[in-house]
């Protein structure tokens, strides 16, 4: 039960981090200048963004929960099961970020969901 609770924390924090990151990076626009000076400019433009700070905090929560999870559950369960975030991310990318999700991506997410269900057996 503890393992499933930790997995839920990992998935929820990963999903939140990815959504915040994606939202903020899309707002910033495509990065085209990969020279050191260009990357410095991008970094200084992004460093104080509230959404990115929250995203990093969520990633930290996800990492600490992962540390706790591998203490109580098998690694061969923890790593694949955390891919369950892909399913929720796909649904939320469609609903919140208004992304177009094609059928191949829906089938991929469904396969991941079935895989996580098999891990639970």
């Amino acid at each position, binding site marked *: 039960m503890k393992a499933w609770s930790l997995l839920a924390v990992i998935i929820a924090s990963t999903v939140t981090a990815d959504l915040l990151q994606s939202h903020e990076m899309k707002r910033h626009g495509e990065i085209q200048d*990969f020279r050191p000076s260009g990357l410095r400019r991008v970094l200084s433009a992004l460093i104080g963004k509230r959404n990115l700070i929250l995203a990093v905090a969520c990633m930290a929560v996800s990492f*600490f929960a992962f*540390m*706790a999870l*591998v*203490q109580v559950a*098998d*690694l*061969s*369960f*923890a*790593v*694949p099961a955390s*891919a369950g975030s*892909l399913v929720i991310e*796909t649904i939320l990318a469609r609903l919140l970020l*208004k*992304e*177009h*999700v*094609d059928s*191949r*991506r829906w*089938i*991929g*997410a*469904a*396969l*991941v*969901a*079935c*895989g*996580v*269900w*098999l*891990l639970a*057996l």
Partner: protein
Amino acid sequence: MNPRLRWKTRIFAAIVILSNALGNLSLTWGLRNGAGELTSPLSFLRAIFSPWVSLGICLLIAWMISRMFLLSWADLSYVLPVTAFGYVLNALLGRLFLGEQVTPARWAGTLLIMAGVILVGLGNPHTGDST
């Protein structure tokens, strides 16, 4: 793709897969052997500075950096399917080095997840214009 870039891509893909799997293995090994129970913020901090956990964190940082580098010239639709092999490698390392019992259902689940990630990765990474 020129041969030099092809080799660079293969080498970085291997680094991404191996650093992730070995990082997770080292982290798990350290957390189960001498890092103590994670019950308070202080216990997390103590665990982070234990040798195997530190090595695991360093390898996971190497994984993040090498993945970022790889993504700077390779498509996400290439990186996701190739690195999805890491799920199987993690299960294999858990079985071999941590003595975990990987049941047939767990193998099947891992393979399904890998197939799902590959399928997602084969799609168009930029779908904004298609709506």
